[in-house]
């Protein structure tokens, strides 16, 4: 069972803090992978502008790095900044893998000012996918994790602290307002960089502990949507990201509905729900997206909203706690302790099967939303 930690704070902080929290929960992973996603990124020696995007990935060879640079140039992206990690040699075991360069590069986008936000987002996704395909076509010498205005993604096989030390993440040169990290316990599928959580698509990211036994039918259904980026599926948890994307970006439903899609209420419960009739129809229409956990799903959205939802069985742990201005979500209580020590632990909350916990971008308070409560639907066009 993997370990999860997320911190969201008004003041940007070092991702190393979250890795320390992972250390507190170290019984729960086996060094088969670490994924880190930073959102609301601040570089010490570079100021991001609204038309900047960050490309994260790994160039496994020099040729791949060169090809990547050429590719981005051809697509009209202009390199503005390159973040070089202060690598400490010998810390990350690299004897069996090629890691020519951990890429974190800031590009100025082509002139997209006449494009809608949607179109811009779509272009970014298309570019990321094209670059990923480019790597796959060349024997997998290029791994691309994300391409997004203020998101940095780091994934590596190894123990979390070891990876953090190896990349020198404690030097404070890179900070973020939201950091999510997952220490992986390899269960089913092979050790693969793309299999590390958090997964990313069009600004949306999720990470999960547990196993989703309904993986194959969900995967087959998502693949059939023919939406760019619904691919990969090296991990059974990648479907959670894509379902969240599908619900919020494609179906344009409120965030609360995500829970109704992945773990719908029973008919007898919907019979007395104020929106029961609609939700029954939605459950039928989205039947193939019902997950079969146990899972705790932690997600972040482009506006820095963070979300935690449990599966229906509620057999996986997850706790949320904090204070105005700094909140933490973690699979274990000790993780929350390590992330926000100066909080009132009595106010910590462990969501039950019907709950979705939301940390809004203002970070003033937690929203605890129950599936039995109504939500606001956009009016009919």
């Amino acid at each position, binding site marked *: 069972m993997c370990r999860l930690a997320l911190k969201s704070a008004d003041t940007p902080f070092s991702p190393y803090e979250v890795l320390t929290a992972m250390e507190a929960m170290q019984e729960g992973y086996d060094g088969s992978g670490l994924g880190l996603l930073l959102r609301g990124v601040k570089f010490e020696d570079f100021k991001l502008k609204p038309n900047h995007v960050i490309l994260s990935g790994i160039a496994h060879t020099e040729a791949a790095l060169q090809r990547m640079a050429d590719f981005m140039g051809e697509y009209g992206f202009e390199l503005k900044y390159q973040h070089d990690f202060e690598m400490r040699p010998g810390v990350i075991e690299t004897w069996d893998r090629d890691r020519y360069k951990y890429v974190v590069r800031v590009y100025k986008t082509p002139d997209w000012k006449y494009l809608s936000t949607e179109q811009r987002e779509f272009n970014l996704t298309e570019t990321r996918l094209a670059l990923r395909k480019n790597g796959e076509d060349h024997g997998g010498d290029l791994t691309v994790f994300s391409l997004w205005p203020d998101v940095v993604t780091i994934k590596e096989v190894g123990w979390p602290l070891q990876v953090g030390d190896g990349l020198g993440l404690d030097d404070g040169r890179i900070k973020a307002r939201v950091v999510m990290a997952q220490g992986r316990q390899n269960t089913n599928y092979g050790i693969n960089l793309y299999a590390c959580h958090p997964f990313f698509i069009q600004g949306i990211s999720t990470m999960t502990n547990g196993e989703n036994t309904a993986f194959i039918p969900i995967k087959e259904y998502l693949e059939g949507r023919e939406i760019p980026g619904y691919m990969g599926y090296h991990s059974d948890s990648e479907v959670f990201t894509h379902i969240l994307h599908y619900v919020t970006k494609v179906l344009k439903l409120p965030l609360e509905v995500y829970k109704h899609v992945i*773990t719908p209420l029973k008919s007898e419960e919907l019979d007395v729900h104020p929106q029961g009739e609609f939700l029954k129809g939605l459950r039928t229409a989205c039947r193939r997206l019902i997950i079969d956990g146990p899972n705790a799903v932690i997600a972040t959205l482009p506006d820095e909203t963070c979300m935690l939802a449990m599966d229906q*069985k509620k057999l996986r742990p997850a706790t949320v706690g904090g204070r105005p201005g700094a909140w933490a979500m973690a699979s274990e209580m000790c993780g929350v302790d390590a992330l926000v020590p100066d909080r009132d632990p009595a106010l910590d909350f462990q969501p039950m099967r019907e709950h979705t916990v939301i940390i809004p971008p203002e970070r003033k308070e937690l929203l605890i939303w129950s599936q039995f409560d109504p939500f606001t639907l956009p009016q009919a066009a």
Partner: protein
Amino acid sequence: MVSVRSLYTSPGSLTYHDLPWVIHHREDRCTLCGQCTAVCPVNAIYLTYRRQRVPKLDVLKKKRGNEYRHFVGIRQKTDIAHRCIGCGMCSMVCPNEAIGPEPNQNENRSHFLHNQKGEAYKRGGRRNMPGTTILDRISFDRISMLTDPALDAGRHEFNYNTVLGRVLPPEEFLQKSASGEWVPPTREVFPFIIGSMSFGALSPNMWLGLLQGVAYCNEVLGIPVVMATGEGGCPPWVLRSPFLKYIILQIASGYFGWDEIIRAIPEMQCDPAAIEIKYGQGAKPGDGGLLMWFKVSKLIARLRGVPEGVDLPSPPVHQTLYSIEESVMKMIQTMSMAFGFRVPVYPKISGSTSAKAVLNNLVRNPYAGGLLIDGIDGGTGAAYDVSMQATGHPVASNLRECYLDLVAQGRQNEIPLFAAGGVGKNGNVTQNGLALIMLGASGVHIGKYIMQAAAGCLGNELGRCNVCNTGICPKGITSQNEKLFRRLDPDDVAQRVVDTFMGIRTEMKKVMAPLGRSQSLPIGMSDALGIDDADAAKRLKINYIC
């Protein structure tokens, strides 16, 4: 001494050793009570006088001789019409265990003589091919243990129901529900459905028992079981009762019973569960329904609007049909409209290599509420033996192909596929059903199994009984003769229906729990299936295990 030349034998002469079933009778136990001969549905046995030689030895006179005694014994008839059908009713009624049929281990010559008077062999039952089926060989091999805690089948909450009816893609559903447009009707039902057996094929007591059991499952146990009528309508009181919501009304090429149904529409208290349009049947593809004259009783004749005692062969195709496009357009839409677009309408076809063509047509029709594919192992009340034995397509690969075709189009949630034909053939009903569900079915129909489990049908795939067509069912399940069907108590049938579905429900949990599935029916969860046959694994795209 009789000369050899004068011994009589004709081309059709048989001895009891040539028959599929040989009656074993123990003279020493028989009390000549006559119950066996009275109960035998085909009059295969009779009491007769016999003469027995008793050797006599006079020791004092040093002479050997004979004496003869006469006795009354039971004998087996050897003409085709009265051959023993192996039903075993004689042993069921015998107070002394003195009699019973045994399968003839030798090849039986009677098979060559079934075409008496030029009539090809007709019978009831299903394909007589005993042995393990492909479905029996599938095992559920993806067990959650430590990676994911196994669930407690006894205490955990399971969602095992399925959806019957057309499902819109989520985008379209949202758009239509927001603007108040028509959203196709769906039903939440138990995935094991009592398949279509007509009121006519079944006796009134059997039908009533099934309906009572189904109502109990729904109203007391909360298992939303539905049952399908075959062709031939539905008793008028049921049409006007609140139980109609548990019934899938079938319309087939003879349109029997639909006068009554249409007349009842204004008086219906609720909508039926669904409408099934029968285009084909797994047991006899290319044939219409057949209700032989023996079973067209006064009641059946009234329901179907026909004279008593005539054969009722339905045409092989619907008379209005010119092509599948026309069928889809006319029938599905007409039936939808007749019930105010509130009832799912779906076609039933026989398993066939052309099933995908039908499916693709349905995908494009917004009114089509599903597709039922009936495989070669499906049962029937009456059909030509050759149709049952040799015509059709096994359901497993046919269903899988259709499902994967939907997956390739991304439409697998829109047209629910139902599978039938051989589910529970060897008694493994839940295992067979769940295997089909994980291959892609949304549910399965069970007919023969429910007759065997709920009413004690004696038929098997060694040719036992198989006389449903002639109305002489010794258990009263498929008979319209009151003397026979009064043997069947509807309350007992209802009890057995309930036992059966409770058992299936528990077994479903016992399979789903170790797979870590409880939130939804594992439709298409093919990663959990394995089979010990590499070719079948390849064809079904599941794991090969050995």
